[in-house]
């Protein structure tokens, strides 16, 4: 039987290639994403282990506030500690370190580096130090308050050469420097796409953070003591009042790698999730191909059975074939995946994110995982068709047609309905109050049920969808419609990948539309100003607080207010707090205060959102203890509760922050123009003011609101991109099925050609069948996806999502896209169909 299986494989190369194609695609995405994230992780690991490679000890503040999402804000230490460290025996050299926000403005006046989501833009200290990775490739290290060095890539991007005047924006405002050096970081032009401006220690502290303060001290030892002992000795020498901690070089390296690792892990998990979805979609295609080929070989298998092969021998032959296809396909998939990850890296490089040339990382676990998963998935997908092949009665050899025409049975109907009913029951439970974590399970059951019911639904829906084709395309349309309904199992299996892809896209789109709608409503209601200046550097620098006061002075401006962010520990837990100026915010932001006014926010009080008040049972008059990043603690009284928590759950008076030594900045400035003033003039006076600071984007109210929802679009774009993998596999699935159907219907096609069907009519028939199949998947997917989106929006109502918005335009777009996908997938199969040799096909029995 083994030999028969092998002969079967080699005898039908076309079938082998078609089956393998699905496996290759599925596994190549898996391998590609795996190689890519491994490469990325190692790249950054190397990068960050290199940073502290020659550092033996590291001093920093022990005061740190951790907020949500693992963000932390560490206090700074005095620059004077560097000199104390230098006196410790065993220390060879010690230099200060700062990593803070600094934006280099290019010669053309445009900031260098991407806004917001992209790699960070750093300002740091550049000094001659054997422990540092920065070296000067050209020129020299900056000295004094007017000199700067730039990393090579940024200098190039800004079109700067030595001696040029460079404008840099930082915490304290914008300044101009003379470019004295081009720095390089290890062997890369610009690490991970970040930009760097380097200053001498005093200038860095003054310009980037706070005069006299630095982030850390980097130390090299003279080798007389171990790093651990050195760290201990340094710590002992430092005044305890400064609240510092000293780490060894190895410890700080490990810590940095862990941080980067967890950030990349998220990315890797995202990639992997979507590549597994793609592989799952690929399973359908593999299953479908095996089913069709089993049906087409029915007579062959029946003949084998008739001449004495046992059931299990027939089944085994097919499983052996699937094993071969699985191994063969996943090996090619692996190679294709490595190519794919190269493409991804090239894409990043094109986006100016420089990845050090370390080559791709192909781990043995990637190889094993790809080949193993690919083979298992293929064999599993082939089990059902193989068992079915074994059940072929020997008598089938005598039958005329080898079509797969079995009617979908009662079992299927009952099974599908039960699965959907169970799934709906779980979803209802969640809606009524069960934990959201059951939601995924309920959704999965509905999906499974729908796919099980597919063959039953496929016929009527395909006939319905085919109606326009039959009406307007004449006999070719009629035949396309009949062809798509003649084999409901096959059609529904072909449409299933489309269904899954479309359902996910629709659900995500519906969710996004709801979030965007919500953002629109909320901001229109709450933001009463006319203009906003926003910055993308959340948590890492922002707008100078003086921007708001400057703008408020403008003649055409009625009022302007700045809103800032600080981190602090509230009752022991790190939080982001919003800081406002109560005297200017009135009339610009409406946060929905309940029985309170902005004027109630004193420098020893706090406003909290209704949500938090409920959750923590705070009322007006409750007290909360707050510890700020500089270690100062205050007791704050709740003096107001508000409904709209879009700007944050805790609001403080800016005056309170000013009374601590925490450095703060604004994340936005909001402006109301004088009623009746010419908006063109307002805009030009605002533009001039903003330009002076060189930071922040000036937006009209509508632009500002759009920008808020625009962030949703970015995430949506990423998810769409990842779902593309599944879409590609669906298209390939349709192509493969159509091709197999064309092979199967050769005689029919030959007959049609003989009685007068032109080649273009043949093409039309195949094309419309393809379109109907694709639309079938899309329609079912949209129905499922909208349901899914609604359920998710409902489940998220705790997160503040209140209304479900139907994504009408995207739904129409998806339908049109599916139509196009259908047309596109049919190109090759339709061409093949016209190449059918009339005489050969008519003569073969």
């Amino acid at each position, binding site marked *: 039987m083994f030999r028969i299986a092998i002969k079967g494989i080699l005898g039908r190369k076309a079938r082998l290639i078609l089956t393998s194609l699905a496996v290759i695609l599925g596994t190549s995405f898996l391998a590609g994403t795996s190689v890519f994230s491994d490469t990325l992780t190692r790249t950054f690991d190397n990068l960050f282990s290199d940073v502290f490679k020659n550092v033996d000890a590291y001093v920093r503040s022990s005061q740190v506030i951790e907020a949500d999402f693992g963000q932390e804000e560490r206090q700074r230490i005095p620059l004077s500690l560097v000199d104390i460290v230098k006196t410790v025996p065993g220390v060879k050299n010690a230099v200060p370190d700062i990593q803070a926000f600094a934006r280099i403005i290019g010669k053309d006046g445009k900031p260098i580096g991407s806004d917001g989501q992209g790699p960070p833009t750093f300002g740091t200290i550049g000094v001659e130090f054997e422990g540092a990775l920065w070296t000067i490739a050209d020129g020299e290290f900056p000295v004094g308050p007017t000199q700067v060095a730039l990393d090579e890539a940024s200098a190039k991007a800004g079109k700067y050469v030595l001696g040029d005047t460079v404008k840099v924006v930082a915490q304290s405002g914008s300044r101009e420097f003379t470019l004295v050096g081009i720095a390089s970081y290890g062997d890369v032009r610009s690490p991970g796409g970040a930009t760097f401006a380097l200053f001498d220690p005093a200038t860095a502290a003054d310009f980037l953070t706070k005069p006299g303060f630095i982030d850390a001290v980097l130390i090299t030892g003279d080798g007389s003591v171990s790093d651990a002992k050195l760290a201990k000795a340094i710590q002992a020498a430092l005044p305890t009042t400064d609240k510092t901690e000293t780490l060894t070089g190895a410890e700080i390296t490990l810590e940095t790698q862990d941080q980067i690792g967890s950030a990349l892990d998220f990315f890797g998990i995202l990639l992997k999730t979507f590549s597994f979805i793609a592989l799952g979609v690929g399973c359908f295609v593999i299953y479908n191909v095996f089913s069709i080929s089993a049906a087409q070989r029915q007579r062959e298998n029946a003949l084998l059975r008739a001449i004495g092969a046992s059931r299990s021998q027939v089944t085994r032959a097919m499983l052996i074939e699937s094993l071969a296809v699985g191994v063969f396909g996943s090996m090619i998939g692996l190679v294709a995946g490595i190519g794919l990850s190269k493409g991804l890296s090239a894409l990043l490089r094109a986006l100016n994110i420089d990845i050090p040339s370390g080559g791709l990382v192909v781990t043995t676990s990637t190889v094993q995982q790809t080949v193993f998963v690919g083979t298992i998935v293929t064999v599993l997908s082939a089990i059902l068709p193989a068992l079915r092949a074994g059940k072929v009665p020997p008598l089938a050899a005598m039958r005329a*047609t080898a079509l797969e025409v079995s009617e979908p049975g009662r079992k299927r109907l009952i099974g599908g309905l039960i699965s959907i009913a169970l799934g709906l029951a779980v979803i209802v439970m969640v809606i009524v109050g069960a934990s959201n974590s059951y939601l995924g399970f309920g959704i999965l059951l509905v999906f499974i049920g729908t796919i099980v019911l597919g063959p039953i639904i496929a016929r009527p829906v395909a006939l319905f969808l085919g109606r326009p084709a039959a009406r307007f395309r004449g006999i070719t349309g009629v035949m396309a419609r009949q062809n798509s309904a003649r084999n409901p199992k096959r059609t529904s299996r072909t449409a299933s990948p489309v269904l899954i892809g479309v359902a996910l896209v629709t659900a995500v789109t519906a969710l996004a539309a709801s979030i965007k709608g919500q953002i629109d409503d909320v901001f229109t209601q709450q933001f009463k100003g006319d203009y906003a200046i926003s910055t993308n550097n959340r948590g890492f620098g922002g707008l100078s607080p003086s921007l708001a006061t400057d703008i408020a002075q403008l003649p055409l401006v009625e009022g302007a207010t700045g809103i800032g962010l600080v981190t602090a520990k509230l009752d022991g837990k790190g939080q982001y707090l919003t800081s406002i100026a109560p005297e200017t915010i009135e009339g610009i932001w409406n946060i929905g205060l309940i029985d309170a006014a902005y004027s109630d926010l004193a420098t020893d009080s706090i406003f909290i959102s209704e949500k938090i008040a409920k959750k923590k049972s705070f009322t007006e008059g409750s007290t909360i203890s707050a510890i700020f990043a500089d270690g100062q603690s205050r007791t704050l009284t709740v003096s107001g509760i508000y409904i709209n928590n879009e700007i944050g759950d805790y609001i403080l008076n800016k005056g309170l922050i000013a009374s601590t030594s925490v450095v703060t900045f604004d994340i936005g400035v909001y402006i109301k123009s004088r009623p009746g003033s010419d908006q063109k003039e307002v805009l030009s006076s605002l533009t001039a003011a903003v330009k002076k600071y060189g930071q922040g984007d000036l937006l009209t109210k509508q632009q500002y609101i759009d920008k808020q929802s625009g962030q949703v679009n970015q995430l949506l774009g990423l998810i769409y991109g990842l779902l593309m993998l599944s879409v590609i596999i669906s298209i390939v699935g349709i192509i493969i099925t159509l091709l197999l159907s064309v092979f199967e219907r050769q005689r029919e096609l030959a007959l*049609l050609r*003989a*009685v007068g*069907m*032109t080649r273009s009519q043949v093409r039309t028939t195949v094309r419309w069948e393809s379109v109907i199949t694709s639309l079938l998947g899309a329609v079912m997917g949209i129905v499922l996806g909208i349901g899914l989106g609604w359920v998710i929006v409902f489940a998220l109502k705790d997160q503040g999502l209140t209304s479900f918005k139907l994504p009408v335009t995207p739904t129409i777009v998806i339908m049109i896209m599916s139509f196009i996908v259908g047309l596109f997938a049919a190109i090759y199969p339709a061409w093949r169909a016209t190449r059918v040799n009339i005489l050969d096909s008519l003569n073969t029995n």
Partner: protein
Amino acid sequence: MTPQTRTVAASTLSASKVYGSGDDAVYALNDVSVEFFAGEFTAIMGPSGSGKSTLMHCIAGLDELSSGSAIIDGTDLSTMKDKALTELRREKIGFVFQSFNLVPTLTADENIRLPLMLGNDKGNEEWIQKVISTVHLNDRLTHRPSELSGGQQQRVAVARALASEPRIIFADEPTGNLDSTTGAEILTFMRKAVDDLGQTIVMVTHDPVAASYADRIIFLADGKVVNEMTEPTAEKVLDLMKTIGH
């Protein structure tokens, strides 16, 4: 009818069809010149492999001759491209094959009108109704081929061949798969189509009884026309077949 007044519906002139080349060359047709007359029922007989199907395919525009020409309705087929040939088949030729004559997804009615619908042609409804009632299919029109018997399927095929009022109908062993009663039914019907409806039919067959329904029989052997017989009967055909070693 006298030979002088007959019109030629289709003909070949020195038609040859060669498979392979050199020593391996097989002459499926070797310098065949025949004429098929309008309003006549012609049968083609001959041993297996004698070139009957090849001749039919070449005249019907399904296959190309190696040399010589095939002419239908005054047009030389060798000068025509695929599209024109397809249109010719659709409009001027009707086909009945031995089996697998019908499109499984279409109803009997749709199958009958298939060539017309392909040409976006409504056809002559009166004629079509006449054809349908002649083949006794009125109560089977909405059925699909899988719901019809072998004989009914062949009747639908014959009806399809007639529906577009073609110049000529080619049938390759149309009764080969049928029992003798059903076969007789189909043959009677074809005979009626010629006599009552004035059709032209060319039929390939092995069966002397089937051939006896024809007006004229052409005998092929080794790719050549070896004999001809008019007003045949089954006995006459059997006798002749013995002499030419069928």
